């Protein structure tokens, strides 16, 4: 509703001038080098093969040199003409040499800010800043690359502006909610399906080797399986490396995640941007009592599968109690795990012979909770305020049994809430009520400029957690300024 007073004057100035304003900044000067080297490496690899085959090394060298020079020039041009800065209430990025392109990213629609540092970037002291705004298929504006300090400062400014407070507000303090110990991360990886498959593979090969020690067949089998083993190893390594040193912290800006061994990633998701959370427990983790938390955040999921997995993890592995506490933080005002559940009716056993007894759903005033899964268990939570649409679906078998399923649709991502196999009349009631609950919740939802709310309320209660001896509200507000 109210925009930051600091941005008013700037907006007026920028409206007049269409050429890039002078205060706009350039990306880090090493950008062309970082962006170009992979391209150059590919050229060398492909051209090199050719050259080795034909023996014309001289021509190859010249070609590579030409490519390098051309690449360097275009890279430098593109770097020179790419500038970013704040323009009114939006981040504006101007780019392009011949086709000028000016993009404005509306900050009130900001869903998440990530700072990623690929290995090469870490060595050179630069990082990439990604803004997620809902709607765009890909991340709206990956700013590649910025100096580390610049990226952190820009993130703070983005979050402050998006929150509706003064742009110069320093980065908000944070409180670590959860750290994943290394041994647990390793164990959770060991207890994953991919790892067990890999072990079975290797044992199988070993047995085969014992039986056919002399034959040539073994060698063939062995060599053909090696790529498979390497692939599994790489996947496991990626999983381990991705979630290495995982830290989840909370701050008035929302939750923050830091993780990664070689490539590090810092995510910040402002309050009220979580579209749904799923708590999952793979079969092998049950003995340890571990669970995983995945979130839907609009914008993250538009990315490819691998990326989506990378960005949608809220907790890679945690005990049930720790995960429950995190859930309460991410979805304030409710405790999804203590919502009373209502179980699927008996006829559901014809459609789900195993696990129909685990099918259940529950509703409180903030969220709808769906539980299912026998081997791999899952509890899905979707806030009413984030419900996009509600559907009833009834297939021919369900019709004969008098059942129907209700789907609560959310933004794309790993979280899907489907209330399966309820009596038809009940399903109809659920749909009507869910639509009504969603309507009411939307009105009471967190405003897009989430800090603006604290200024309006006389009794602010930021991060209202349950430690009874917390400081009085007024001083806790001062802590955060």
């Amino acid at each position: 509703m109210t925009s930051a007073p600091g941005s008013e004057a700037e907006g007026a100035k920028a409206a007049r001038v269409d050429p890039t304003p002078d205060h706009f900044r350039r990306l880090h000067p090493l950008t062309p080098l970082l962006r170009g080297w992979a391209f150059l490496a590919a050229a060398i690899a492909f051209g090199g093969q050719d050259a080795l085959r034909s023996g014309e090394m001289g021509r190859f060298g010249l070609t590579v040199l030409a490519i390098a020079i051309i690449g360097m020039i275009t890279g430098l041009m593109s770097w020179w003409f790419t500038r970013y800065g704040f323009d009114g209430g939006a981040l504006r990025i101007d780019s392009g040499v011949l086709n000028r392109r000016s993009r404005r990213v509306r900050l009130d629609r900001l869903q998440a800010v990530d700072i990623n540092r690929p290995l090469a970037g870490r060595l050179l002291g630069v990082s990439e800043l990604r803004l997620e705004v809902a709607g765009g298929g890909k991340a709206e504006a990956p700013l590649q690359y910025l100096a580390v300090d610049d990226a952190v400062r820009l993130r703070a400014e983005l979050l402050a502006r998006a929150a509706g407070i003064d742009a110069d507000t320093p980065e908000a303090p944070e409180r670590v909610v959860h750290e994943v110990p290394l041994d647990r991360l390793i164990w959770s990886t060991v207890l994953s399906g991919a790892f067990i498959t890999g072990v079975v593979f290797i044992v199988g090969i070993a047995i085969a080797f014992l039986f056919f020690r002399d034959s040539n067949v073994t060698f063939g089998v062995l060599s053909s399986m090696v790529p498979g083993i390497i692939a599994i190893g790489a996947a496991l390594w990626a999983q381990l490396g991705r979630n290495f040193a995982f830290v989840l912290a909370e701050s008035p800006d929302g939750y923050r995640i830091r993780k990664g061994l070689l490539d590090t990633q810092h995510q910040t998701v402002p309050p009220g941007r979580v579209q749904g959370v799923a708590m999952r427990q793979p079969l092998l983790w049950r003995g340890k009592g571990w669970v995983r938390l995945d979130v839907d955040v609009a914008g993250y999921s538009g990315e490819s599968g691998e990326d989506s997995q990378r960005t949608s993890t809220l907790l890679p592995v945690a005990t049930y109690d720790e995960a429950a506490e995190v859930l309460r933080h991410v979805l304030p005002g409710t405790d999804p795990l203590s919502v009373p559940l209502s179980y699927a009716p008996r006829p559901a056993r014809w459609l789900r012979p195993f696990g129909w007894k685990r099918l259940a759903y529950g509703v409180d005033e903030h969220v709808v909770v769906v539980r299912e899964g026998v081997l791999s268990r899952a509890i899905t939570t979707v806030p009413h305020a984030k419900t996009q649409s509600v559907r009833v679906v009834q297939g021919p078998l369900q019709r004969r049994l008098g059942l129907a399923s209700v789907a609560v649709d959310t933004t794309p991502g790993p979280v899907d809430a489907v209330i399966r196999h309820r009596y038809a009349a009940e399903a109809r009631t659920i749909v009507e009520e869910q639509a009504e609950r969603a309507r009411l919740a939307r009105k009471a939802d967190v405003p897009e400029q989430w800090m603006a709310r604290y200024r309006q309320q006389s009794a602010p209660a930021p991060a209202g957690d349950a430690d009874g001896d917390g400081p009085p509200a007024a001083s806790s507000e001062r802590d955060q300024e």
Partner: protein
Amino acid sequence: MDQDQLFAPPGEAWQQVSRKLVSLRRLVLLVSVTVCTAVVAVVLGLIFGLPAVLIAVGAGLVALVWGLWLIPRNWRAWGYAERLDDLLVTHGVMFRRLTVVPYGRMQFVDVASGPLERRYGLATVQLHTASPATDAKIPGLPAAEAARLRDRLSALGEAQAAGL
């Protein structure tokens, strides 16, 4: 009985889509089945001789009759209702669906009309939310009704728009 109530409209009756949709779909079916049957019959005829041709034509006829019977049923299953805060869409015979889309959740409205649809004066209106699973497509609307619906939906969507 209670099965039909599951997909009954709230309060008033469903608004139906144009009956012309049946003619349109029958035409599409007729052409596609004829072409497919002809191709299959010729190929099988060249390989296996006359009996195969008869079987292929027979199968084509059965598919045609079944389809012609199915199309009106499918048409009857389509329905939509505009409520104060949301749009309801229902469709499907085997797999029946009912979708409730709040206007405030609407991201954009698509109105599409292919060459064949245009000949029949029909258009398809589709509502998009931030969820790709939202299943709010209404085919076979008369062009004027489609335009009215589009305008009404976008006006309501703007008035009730909620952030993500």
